[in-house]
């Protein structure tokens, strides 16, 4: 990191008063933001962490009970369902969104007409709330009047699509809606990177007789490795935080079949007066996110040092 010339100036003991004031102005300006973050982020995490080690129910209590809530949490079948759902949903959502986003970006990068319009259409779902996405897809996928009826009216009488009310399949409706919402964003990330690929290399390879698909597979996609990585981490992060979409589309049901950790936490904390358990599940979510984010930041920092 390049040091600011003024930083060195500040080290010697003797300096004019105006300088001294200036440094403190900077600190004073940063102070409120920093104080808010210390209190509302770090302080609150510490608080939640502490409560997760107590037997708090409706109101927080502060006698330390060790890992009682964590043991309880991991014995609950609902929590296991939520974690398994996170794995299934996260895995499919990340995979499909990346494949689709990458494919669309490559397709859009072929000097197509109306590129701007297509890009706008691919990306607009990202501007709306997951609650709206959930509401819209709930209507489209509803077994009575939605897709099913449309196919029936087209003469495919045996067509049946009951995923929303089928406890084995409800989780996949979340994947459909989440991919719809987020794949355009992945496309935008890939497209930005593709625009940065050196076109001379591609031309040279083409003139050497390499086919277009080979050029993409062998030359271009490997250079996009950082985009694959950042898309993966961003989508994984989104998956762990999924809450609104579940509420709006499936309500976690049928039963608890499509519940996710964030919904579990909300349910325990605000509906069932199990604050300690809610705190423990929140800490597990934090741990999951950190397990994803720390390698990401590490790889980003390392790349910048080498790059």
């Amino acid at each position: 990191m390049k040091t600011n010339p003024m930083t060195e100036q500040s080290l010697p003991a003797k300096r004019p008063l105006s300088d001294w004031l200036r440094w403190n102005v900077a600190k004073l300006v940063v102070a409120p933001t920093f104080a808010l973050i210390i209190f509302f982020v770090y302080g609150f995490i510490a608080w939640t962490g502490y409560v997760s080690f107590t037997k708090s129910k409706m109101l927080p209590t502060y006698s330390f009970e060790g890992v009682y809530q964590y043991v309880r949490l991991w014995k609950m079948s609902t929590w296991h369902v939520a974690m398994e759902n996170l794995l299934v949903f996260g895995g499919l959502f990340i995979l499909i969104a990346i494949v689709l986003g990458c494919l669309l970006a490559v397709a859009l990068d072929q000097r197509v007409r109306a590129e701007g319009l297509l890009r706008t259409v691919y990306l607009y779902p990202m501007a709306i709330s997951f609650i709206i996405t959930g509401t819209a897809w709930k209507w489209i996928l509803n077994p009575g009047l939605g897709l099913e009826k449309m196919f029936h009216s087209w003469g495919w009488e045996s067509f049946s699509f009951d995923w929303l009310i089928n406890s084995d399949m409800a989780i996949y409706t979340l994947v459909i809606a989440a991919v719809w919402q987020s794949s355009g964003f992945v496309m935008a990330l890939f497209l930005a990177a593709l625009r940065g690929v050196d076109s001379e290399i591609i031309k040279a390879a083409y003139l050497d007789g390499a086919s277009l698909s080979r050029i993409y597979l062998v030359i271009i996609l490997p250079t996009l490795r950082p985009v694959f990585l950042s898309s993966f981490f961003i989508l994984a992060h989104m998956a762990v935080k999924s809450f609104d979409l579940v509420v709006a589309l499936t309500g976690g049901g049928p039963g608890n079949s499509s519940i996710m950790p964030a919904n579990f936490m909300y349910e325990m904390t605000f509906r069932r007066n199990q604050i300690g358990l809610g705190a423990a599940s929140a800490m597990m979510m934090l741990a999951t996110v950190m397990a994803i984010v720390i390698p990401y930041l590490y790889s980003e920092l390392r790349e910048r040092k080498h790059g």
Partner: protein
Amino acid sequence: MADIASLPGGNSPWRSAGRFGLYFLLLSFGVYYILPLIVVLSTSFKDLDEIRNGTLLSLPAEINLESWRYAWSEACIGVTCTGLKPYFWNSVMMTIPAVLISTVLGALTGYALTKFKFPGANMVFAMILFGCFIPFQVVLLPMAQSLGFLGLANTVPGLVLVHIVYGLPFTVLFFRNYYVSIPDDLIKAATIDGAGFFTIFWRILLPLSPPIIVVTIIWQFTQIWNDFLFGASFTTGGGQPVTVALNNLVNTTTGVKRYNVDMAAALITAAPTLAVYVLAGRYFVRGLTAGSVKG
């Protein structure tokens, strides 16, 4: 991307077939993304008979705005039947101050952290940045308690506070990364001329900032307007923002399910952020890529 079409062999029949396939692919996915919007829009214009007798794709016989009116001013959210109107205004009253305050604080903090670097400034930035990554579940409980303690539970000012605090890491990130690329020489020259902290900010940095201000405002606006988690956790009844009210409206079933009203309500809720996207899409995309935390 290389202009391969202009290279030798660029016009074979295989290429035409390839182009056809390419456009087919692009258009099919265009349909996948746009169709839900069309279905929702057309459903909102139908009456219930049309919905029962038609299919998703059948178009409404006429543009019937009855369900829009009903969703706006009459539909029941829980036990109160006021439509979305008061909740929409809650969201407006919550979003505007939260966006403005978090943007101003973010700009000043980003400026101080890059142009008047004090020892430890990078550490302070890293600690603020951490706030971008946390799952908010981990702060919900203490926040609910604190809002109650401050007397701000179930109020719009309470939500404003929440959104300022948890928007700050992003606004600081945006401005800090933008200001880092502005040459220090500019500031040095101004310092020699005797300009102080705020004069430099006002005269030099701010005139260079409109792009990042627009990106930040759009990002914050979209995030805060679309929030559901904080609204659902800290408000009930009349204090809810519009996303929470929409969810309650859709899931309040008293008597006949009015799908047309649900869809109109969804579109009313989506309208502000969609309008921003259409008007300033370029900045929206820049915010998305910057907000996806590229350090």
